């Protein structure tokens, strides 16, 4: 029993990691998306490289680069810090693309309607386009959030004291059956993921109706 409590105690770390990395992505994704959409090649090209690289390199490689690689240059992070940064980088790229997809889905007639009313470029973006784009992007964002939650398990490789790290160490010591321990860890991830998916499906249906197709 103690074994399972010990593993369960890794849950806050898993959650904190997911929430922080997602928050970094949600914020950093905005300027990244704006740069990616810019008419200036000088902004657009580097944004594209950053987004493509962030997504092309496997998350675990990012974690190793930041934790082991950068340590060589003197930039030392705790495992948790490295994990937040690494997953944050990946999140920024994915969420920038989710935002961009949302904006592309909004009819250009909505821009025109705003312009014809004399709204400034900024107001038109902030109050007309962005709220609608967000609604379109929401399912993509939720799918990514679930993937991110599961990817936090990768951070056990750099020693973050989260669910899988604890399950793995308990299994190694043999405090209980490995199968039971790992199944318990798996069940914890499922318990977090499945309700998230259910909530977003319902949100999506409610919000999709309030968007110009």
């Amino acid at each position, binding site marked *: 029993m103690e074994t399972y409590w010990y593993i369960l105690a890794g849950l806050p770390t898993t959650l904190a990691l997911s929430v922080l990395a997602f928050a970094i992505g949600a914020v950093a994704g905005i300027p990244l998306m704006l740069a990616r959409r810019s008419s200036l090649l000088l902004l657009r090209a580097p944004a594209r490289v950053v987004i493509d690289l962030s997504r092309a390199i496997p998350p675990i490689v990012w974690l190793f680069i930041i934790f082991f690689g950068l340590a060589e240059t003197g930039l030392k992070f705790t495992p948790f810090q490295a994990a937040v940064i690494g997953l944050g980088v990946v999140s920024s790229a994915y969420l920038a693309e989710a935002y961009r997809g949302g904006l592309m889905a909004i009819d250009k007639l909505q821009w025109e309607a705003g312009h*014809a*009313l*004399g709204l400034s470029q900024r107001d038109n973006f902030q109050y*007309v386009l962005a709220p*609608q784009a967000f609604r379109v992007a929401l399912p993509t964002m939720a799918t990514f959030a679930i993937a991110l939650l599961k990817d936090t398990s990768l951070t056990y490789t750099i020693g973050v004291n989260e669910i899988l790290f604890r399950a793995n160490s308990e299994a190694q010591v043999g405090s209980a059956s490995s199968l039971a321990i790992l199944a318990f860890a798996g069940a914890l991830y499922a318990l977090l993921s499945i309700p998230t998916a259910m909530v977003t499906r319902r949100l999506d249906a409610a919000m999709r109706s309030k*968007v110009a197709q």
Partner: protein
Amino acid sequence: MTHKDAEETDVAPASSVSPLPARADPIVRLTGITKQYGRDAVVDGVSLEVAEGNVLAIVGPSGAGKSTLLRCVNLLERPDHGRIEVHGHAVNAGEPTSERQVAALRRSTGMVFQSFNLFPHLTVLENVSFAQRRVLGRSRQEADSRSRELLARVGLSDKSDTYPQRCSGGQQQRAAIARALALDPKVMLFDEPTSALDPELGLEVLTVMRELANDGMTMIVVSHEMHFAESVADEVAVMADAKVIEQGDPKEIFKNPSHTRTRQFLRAIVER
């Protein structure tokens, strides 16, 4: 041209190639408007004037450039040549245009689109109030009370808190008219406002437009609604192949078109 000059009017400047002398102060004056896509002119050297309080209907076959010309008036399309003047605010094609000039033109005009283009994430009331607050700086209370007044005028008092997709096309278009009117435009631009509506719902919209015209609103209406053009418009301009080929009193033109192309177009409508 300054605002003061515009008010003196009646005497058109020498550069104006207006085919008709304005009866009253022209509040819209388009001079030699040309819009090209690649090498094709969609609008080719069109000059038009609309006197304050008048309704100008622009009719003609699809692809004649009617909508493009209308969209030049509020600079949704940037003309390649020519000059646009609305209520004393002028923009010359080819000269650098400041954000303020564009804003002034757009503030003088209200536009109603074929596809309504209401904001789907806002209620009908919010649709009408929103730009009043952001563009005119009205308080929420001021804006909402003005919106309710206008929604009553277009017969939508009971739809204030409804989202656009819960409204019929006719209701959406009337809400769109209220939204445009809420900014107190000097000129209303209608771009085929009934083309996406069945005849019954179209009639609701035309009725609102007719009332608006009776109240003295200056309007430019691109439409295939010939009965509306004939009974409401003070003047009609027939466009074909990027040019205005005929212009004048709608009753005259519909009864006795002088241009073969107009005759052909009108016959197609009658024979439907």
